[in-house]
């Protein structure tokens, strides 16, 4: 038994390095997508202290809107632009209807409000677009399809072009968000709001404006995640469950850190793939679902605030 746990997986890795590379690649791609979803959570948490439970359904809603509009005869790129408009309107509506009336309420109230938002978006999405799964319009959006097979390490490693595109797009989005946060006036205002609502208000920063911007940014990230996940499978409400995989990423990376979401996503993605592939068969498989949480909890033992989370010291 000890051999099977501590020795055999590494023997397998050495014996079939092509499969190890494939597992690492698959894990990195999953990790990038988890990170994209986690980014949406982080953005909103940073600016408003709200854990947005609706981020998962926002991924589904954005992707459904895109595909739904295309199915109604709207050209792909116009549908993409209109989806961005819809996500902006959603951000405005959330600020007006959910956040503004609840300002200064305890965080738990805002958290519960995002539960309500989740179920509203599920029902509204099903009402408008139906419950039928839809195919992502990958080709129409000009995203690459097909596979690049590379003979290496005595075997074959397959790289899906859409996965490569996902990694590139996610990297660009992360870089753009970093620049946005660090270099722009709005980004600085957003960081100020994250540090202290009251202090930000006292220097003339509009909380309402910031919330709209940040919810819209989370909507854009959700759309990117929805397109990439949808291209790998299909656009359906099952995606919402996948989005919950972002939770251990947040636990690991910290709720307020953009780099944490990225690194956390990659660690969880790679960790669960290697775990399922090499250690899963020992217990009959299917460990991927809980392994992510196990990894996150193991990290928490050493860094309770997450990898990049802020260490909170409160005087009492």
């Amino acid at each position, binding site marked *: 038994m000890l051999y099977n746990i501590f020795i055999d997986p590494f023997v397998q890795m050495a014996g079939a390095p092509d499969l190890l590379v494939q597992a690492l690649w698959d894990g990195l791609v999953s990790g990038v997508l988890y990170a994209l979803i986690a980014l949406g959570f982080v953005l909103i948490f940073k600016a408003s202290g709200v854990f947005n439970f609706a981020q998962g359904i926002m991924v589904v809603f954005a992707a459904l809107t895109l595909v739904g509009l295309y199915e109604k005869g709207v050209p792909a790129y116009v549908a993409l632009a209109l989806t961005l408009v819809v996500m902006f309107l959603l951000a405005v509506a959330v600020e007006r209807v959910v956040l503004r009336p609840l300002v200064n309420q305890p965080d738990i109230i805002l958290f519960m409000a995002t539960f309500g938002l989740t179920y509203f978006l599920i029902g509204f999405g099903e009402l408008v677009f139906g419950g039928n799964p839809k195919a992502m319009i990958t080709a129409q959006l000009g995203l690459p399809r097909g596979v690049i097979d590379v003979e290496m390490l005595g075997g074959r490693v397959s790289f899906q072009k859409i996965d490569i595109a996902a990694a590139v797009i996610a990297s660009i989005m992360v870089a753009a968000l970093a620049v946005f946060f660090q270099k722009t006036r709005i980004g600085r205002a957003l960081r100020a709001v994250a540090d202290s609502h009251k202090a930000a208000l006292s220097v003339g920063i509009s909380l309402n404006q910031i919330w709209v911007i940040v919810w819209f940014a989370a909507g854009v990230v959700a759309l990117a995640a929805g397109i990439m996940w949808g291209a790998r*499978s299909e656009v359906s409400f099952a995606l919402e469950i996948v989005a919950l995989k972002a939770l251990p990423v947040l636990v690991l990376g910290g709720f307020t850190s953009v780099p944490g979401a990225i690194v956390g996503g990659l660690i969880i993605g790679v960790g669960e793939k290697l775990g*399922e592939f090499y250690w899963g068969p020992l217990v009959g498989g*299917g460990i991927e679902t809980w392994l992510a949480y196990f990894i996150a909890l193991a990290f928490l033992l050493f860094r309770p605030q997450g990898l990049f989370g802020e260490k909170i010291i409160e005087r009492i």
Partner: protein
Amino acid sequence: MGYMSKVLLSAASGAAMLLGGQLAPVQAQDGKDANFVPLFTYRTGPFSGSGIPIANGMRDYLEMLNQRDGGIGGAKIVIEECETGYDTKKGLECYEAVKGRNPVMVNPWSTGITLPLIPRAAVDRIPVLSMAYGLSASADGQTFPWIFNPPNTYWDGLSVIIKHIADELGGLDKLKGKKIGYIYLDAGFGKEPIPMFEQFAKDLGFELKLYPVAATDMQNQSSQWLGVRRDKPDYMVMYGWGALNPTAIKEAARINYPMDRFVSIWWPSEDDARSAGPGAKGFRELNWHGVGTDFPVLKDIQKHVIDKGLSKVAKGKEGEVLYNRGVYNSMLIAEGIRNAQKLTGKKAVTGEDVRRGLEAINLTPERLKELGMEGFTDPLKLSCADHNGHGAAFVQEWDGQKYVKIGGPIKPMEDKVGPVAAAAAKDYVEKNAGWPKRTEACDSK
């Protein structure tokens, strides 16, 4: 009494009347006899891709009978859907909501919902029709008089797949030393055939590799398919549902797994295969009924339901595999009610009557012709002892556009499945202390 008290009292009385109205047994509608058929469906959630076409097929067939014939035997069919989302908890809530309203039967459309209903059926006197799903052992009518799962059990289906593979290899003996992979939804449904699979592996000498997929990872299967690449199984068998199916077919195509060696139980739809693109060509699955609309029963549905705007089916989707599966399911419901009416002489029947009616199902070629299903499916006969029929299934292959039947009917290996099923039924009784002995009378041998 103050104003507020009056308001509260009125509201309470209104709610009571409303609830009373809802909970009243349905035996008549518009002053005429009626039979209440609740349909547990899922048009929402992660499994809606499979649930919607089935719900449409079930509803449309029953609606067609209402429109064309005024119901069954002069009694209108009261059709009511209850949304379960393929969630066992919600399914049980649906059951609780309908059980007091004289449903003639329930159709759980989920193995997970079916399993907890099995012990309740006898107590509540409501038959459960779990058509080709649920507990395989419940085909034994002597042990499970209230459960019906025609025309095949999951174990029958597995034996047909094994036989199909053996036929390709040149005989059952050729399976010795082979490796068969099993990818499945890690839930009651997907786990159901594992004991039978393990028995087959032992008896026939092949190696079984398991690839469970949790409901949370249906769209995230790269680990499982990497495992397939490592283990190199000679054949892959799938018991999937909802988003699991299209993702698995896509992943199989992605790793260049030979599609003609990837065989599924009867649940993948056209959309599941279509979404994987050209790589899905050659994918195989079992079926036991026709695909398309070239059958009188489908023409009647088009004429009396779809053309009148009474259906929820999307244009051109009628006749697809899962739609026709729903039609087949409702045909069984209707036959059960019709037989019950004949046995009792009543128009509005009860669950107890329909249980007898289901045991009397005898779909002869002549009867199938009367039903507009000539060439649609094989004859089927149920009895007090056999609640399944253990009919033949055939293999159909995805040609890139549609499923095409390849080869003839394959009968389940009853010599292998029968003893294991009997042992499982016995085991079920032993594990459920106080399981009642059958006391229900038998109308048909």
